[in-house]
């Protein structure tokens, strides 16, 4: 088979970037991401999403996932469909915008994850405010990002693709500083 004309490239080398104190920084692959903006009223989108993707529309600050993919609340009047290619039948219920290449996703997982994030974002990360499956748009180390709790000690961080290196650099430095506290 001939070489493809254009080669796809992640903003960061995919995979594990650093492990310290059982805590892992992992650059995630680029999934298919589509922004869904329903405009005034979202009942039609909720119905279409359930019908075509088997996903409920999340409440603000929420995330709904299934084996097929997930739907993430992404700000005022915005949702992000992550994983599947959007059914063309969603188009009647929402504006669809391709965003697969706009975001970099990094997973931070482990016992120090919360302490690392406490140094990068003003969000309240306690269970009551950010339970499993909760998501927020917030500042992450001076970058506007998206933070989702995907496990009891696991958080997925997303920032613009162009800022991927800064995110990784901040995460690594902070994890090193937090891990060094174990010497106290």
């Amino acid at each position, binding site marked *: 088979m001939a070489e*493809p*004309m*254009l*080669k*796809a*490239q*992640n*903003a960061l080398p995919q995979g594990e970037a650093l492990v310290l104190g059982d805590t892992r920084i992992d650059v995630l692959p*680029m999934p298919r991401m589509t*922004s869904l*903006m329903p*405009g*005034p009223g979202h009942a039609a989108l909720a119905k279409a999403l359930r019908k075509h993707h088997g996903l409920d529309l999340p409440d603000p600050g929420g995330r709904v996932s299934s084996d097929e993919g997930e739907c993430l609340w992404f700000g*005022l*009047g*915005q949702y992000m469909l992550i994983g599947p290619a959007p059914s063309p039948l969603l188009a009647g219920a929402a*504006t669809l*915008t*391709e*965003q*697969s*290449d*706009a*975001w970099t996703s990094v997973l931070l997982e482990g016992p120090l994850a919360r302490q690392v994030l*406490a*140094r990068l*974002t*003003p*969000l*309240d*990360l*306690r269970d*009551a*405010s950010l339970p499993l499956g909760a998501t927020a748009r917030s500042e992450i*180390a*001076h*970058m506007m990002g998206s933070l989702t709790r995907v496990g009891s000690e696991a958080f997925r961080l997303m920032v*613009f*693709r*162009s*800022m*991927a*290196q*800064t995110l990784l*650099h*901040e995460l690594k*430095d*902070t994890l*090193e*500083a937090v*891990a*060094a*506290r174990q*010497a*106290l």
Partner: protein
Amino acid sequence: MRLSKGGRIDRSRAVSFTFDGRALSGHPGDTLASALLASGQKVVGRSFKYHRPRGVFSAGSEEPNALVTLGAGARREPNVRATMQELFDGLEAQSQNCWPSLDWDLLEVNDLFADFLGAGFYYKTFMWPRKAWEWLYEPAIRRAAGLGALSGQPDPEPNEKAFAHCDLLVIGGGPAGLMVALQAGRAGADVILCDEDHEPGGRLLSEVEEIAGAPAMEWVAATLAELEAMDNVRIMIRTTVTGVYDQGTFGALERVGRHMKHRPGPLPLDCFWRIAAKASVLAAGALERPVAFQDNDRPGVMLAGAMRSYLNRYAVAPGDAVTVFGNNDDAHRTARDLLAAGVHVAGLVDSRPGAATDLDLPFYAGAQVTRASGRMGLEAVSIRTPSGEVKLQSDALAVSGGWNPSLHLTCHLNGRPEWSETLAAFLPRPGVVPGMQVAGAATGIFTTAGCLASGAEAAGKALETLGLSVPPLDLPQAGEQGYGVQPLWAVAGNGRAWLDLANDVTVKDVRQAASENFRSVEHMKRYTTQGMAPDQGKISNLGAMAVLADATGRDVAATGITTYRPPYVPVPIAALGAGGKGKGFAPERLTTSHAQSLAMSAPMIEAGLWYRPSYFPRTGEKHWRQSCDREVAHVREAVGVADVSTLGKIDLQGRDAARFLDLVYTNTFSTLKEGRARYGVMLREDGHVMDDGTTARIGPEHFVMTTTTAAAGEVMGHLEFVSQVLVPGWDVRLISVTEQWAQFAVAGPQSRALLEELLGRDLSDAALSFMGTMPIEIGGVEGRLFRISFSGELAYEIAVPARYGESLFTRLVGMAEARGGGAYGMEALNVLRIEKGFLTHAELHGRTTAFDLGLERWMSPSKSFICKAAASRPGLLAEDRERLIGLRPVGASKMIPPGAFLFNEGDEAVRENAQGYVTSSCYSPTLGETIALGFLKSGPERIGEHLRLVDHLREAVTICEVCETCFLDPEGERTRG
């Protein structure tokens, strides 16, 4: 010296350290101050102004005297309070503010001239000649008076900032604070307990006290063990809450790694916390205050409570013969504890006439200390008793003038404290900080039993506001010994009696201020500098206010107190600015072609947060101009490729998208046909130009707007504002797609041929005319092609999903090079646009209108748009405004530096005569001359005029001719192919 037993130090291990190069030793558990006292080091520093010898005065963060410098080189840390610095092996401390040495300080001569150096001395003396203040007097005074010095080198230490959230923040880990945390923890609240010390316990660490029939520290240990076992309680030691801010936000400074010899590299020195709490309890205790009398600053004089700390906590005897002086029962405890430790007490002096004691020592009731004698250390204490003068040989003196509740934090949101006649102290006014309770000594309760009860009560109130039920509690039995203070601020007599040790302010200074009519506390403070040292007058404020009250014939309540402001303790700027060094300063935004540009040796320049290639040097090119000229020629003669992904790209969809664009742009977009793009100008609310760019219609209700790199965020914010606030009912959906697409300009006469080869399709005018757009496909990857030009050449911009950006860039550059062209950077891009008179934010700099920029024809007369009225104000349309023009040099000098001013040829080059200024200039290799853009009064009407350009900074003078803004191909024939 060290007592043979007792204390909370680990005697099994020795810790060696140096002070002014002298090798000394202490034990784990010591502070630097306790170790110095144990080593017999009485003098630890020199005073701020008079360079008088000073010793350790307190045992906490309120210390005014014992400031030292730690470490050396870039890691040097000045003004460290020895009373807060935990001792560690290898610690190197230096005394401050003395020369040549601590024992022999030449500037002590200031002390001899003390009569001339009182309050207001500087203001009265150094007035003439006026100019000498800045270059002579102030630097000289600053050198003589002062504290430790910074190293002057960049700080190599790491610091950090962090956020914490809780239901209840407990400030202070003494008996009251521990009780609050215990109750709240048991109730299930998320609790953060901050304590300034390296171990919680507060005063209990320093007192001989019992709780529940056992030594108080056993209760502390049991309480801490229970708290530590709770998941919902977080104990933050070495953490001082420094400020109260709106909405339940607190600042706190944690000393993370300052107590360690071998600090792991990334471990921060300090961490500055921002804590958000639903409720808080202030249990910060109280600070003891001294009494002013002659020479009360001599080394060996210290606060009575601090003396108990050194005695009981650190097992340090403050001297061989100690006198205790106080106006309350608490002072008696010091005498009692000294006796118990086997230290000789020369006398207990109680200023209260009816006072009594059953201690076996010389007791003087109704007596006052009038003078401390001894220069480098206390030698004797003179006292005035009802029966006459007595002199007691003493090398240490404990002083207690009573206790001031630590209510500082209750005043940070503008609350004022209220005066208590009984306690002769200011007390916190309830409710001045929303959600904050005050407990224990901070609210004027000075018994251990009272503190425990007060803590339990505050916890109950806080839990109620949190909606949690209060757990049952049996309050443990504890000490209820009274305090019985009778105010005594200053002992009458001659000589200088110190109020503010840190800033060398005496009773005389305050009286002088009052006599010169600085009667308000705020005026007195600023005139005398009382309370303005790093300790912020923690020990001295109330005494100074009381003396001022006396001098002005008012009571203390009417005199008032100065305003408490954050921070409660000094916070290093390095902690506040943590993370901002180097790459932490701002996020870096990198394009998909970044790595490839670096591989091509391009120097990168910042454009906002973005990094863009300046030029792409080739072998043999020694100067950026050579590369730039070549790259311009590539575009003018063959084909050039530039990454333009940094331009803002906003996707607009919805039924009202076209109408929305008509509103935000000055010109009309609803008439734009699908597959076409149009230039647009957007105004700010004040009628000035915000941004320009092209917007393409790619569907009936679907547009893609481009913005400049610089204004992308501002435009997005503006559009969100307009859609959410001005026209909330319109159906417009906005989203930034800047990051989704990598976009490259392909410009030059051969651009069409290059792209036809890449895409394998016809791109003739018939297929894609100027300002047209179409979807494309490259090997299965969907993208978009625009025929737009920022160079004046036949040009395209090609967009693909960002993951293919690097690959496409490399391919395009290769194809361009094969055609005699190549990549071009920001320098060439700038030259190309100046040659055409195209605008960037050098011209759209925020003070220019569409009229100034010659864009008035883009302001549609037939529709409304945002700020049409503002932009139509006569002042913004006046003919004589500074308006856009072109410039070229006509004399011998060819220099046209941006920023230079323009003058009429005969006029003097002064501000009043300025006719305009230069915004952009370059050498045009195409035209073989320097060209520039600028603004000139009535500019377009003055084409052909000669002007004198003067750059006062770079000392350039150039005669210029005013010309049209477009220097090349004004008809646009090249663009249209």
